[in-house]
């Protein structure tokens, strides 16, 4: 069962990372390709990267990728159990 979140899910990841790929595929399966925002932090320009990282550091004690945000939730790492808790299985 899907659990709708108020906010559109947003994933921060690295374009080279295997766990980020898995997380992206999980979200695609769940919400469809355009059903969530996807930001590859390694592909951002220097200024944008710095400001995104600052934003992320305020959200998690330790920033690591993938990082998925929706409503008040912030899930760090590829954690299917957590994805299912927040978005439904």
């Amino acid at each position, binding site marked *: 069962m899907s659990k709708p979140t108020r906010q559109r899910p947003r994933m921060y990841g*690295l374009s*080279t990372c295997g*766990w980020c790929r898995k997380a992206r595929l999980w979200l695609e399966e769940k919400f469809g390709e355009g059903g969530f925002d996807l930001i590859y932090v390694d592909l951002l320009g220097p200024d944008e990267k710095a400001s995104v990282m600052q934003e992320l550091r305020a959200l998690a004690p330790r920033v690591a990728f993938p990082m998925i945000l929706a409503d008040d939730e912030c899930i760090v790492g590829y954690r299917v159990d957590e994805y299912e808790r927040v978005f439904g299985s």
Partner: protein
Amino acid sequence: MTIESERLRKTYEQLKTDAEAGGYHLNSDEDWTLGLVEGLLVNEDRYGYQACPCRLASGDKQADLDIICPCDYRDADLHDWGACYCALYVSDEVLAGEKPLQSVPERRPETPPRLSREAEAKPVEGIRLWRCRVCGYLCAREHPPGVCPICRAKQERFEPFVLPPSAIPGDP
């Protein structure tokens, strides 16, 4: 960015040969492993060195030395989790299917260590060795080897390591 398939295949084969020669194993899920090797090559082209594909590199090689693959944290993660942070390298147990593969928490310190050769200049009593920060290999030579014979890490990953005289058996 895409990587030419022959370059990818060659790098993968070399990495696999080197890993096995040193007692390490690449993840046997070839699709997964090739994806990560591609990430390493993308990073090589982008930054000039094979930064960990699962961590955000700074682009400053000195600051990223600890996350050049194989990273300084691989062996500890293999021991504790059965895989490195990316699951590019896996333990014997994971390879044999005796232990499940799980995602590995980040152990890199928030402020990563800066590798310093300062100790080179400071005379310290004892036997001066070189220690590979990746695999712990110790080498009693004037200079560190060009490539670690165990884990293939490059010379720049070696740090000075002084064995105090008290640790040396023999002379009373």
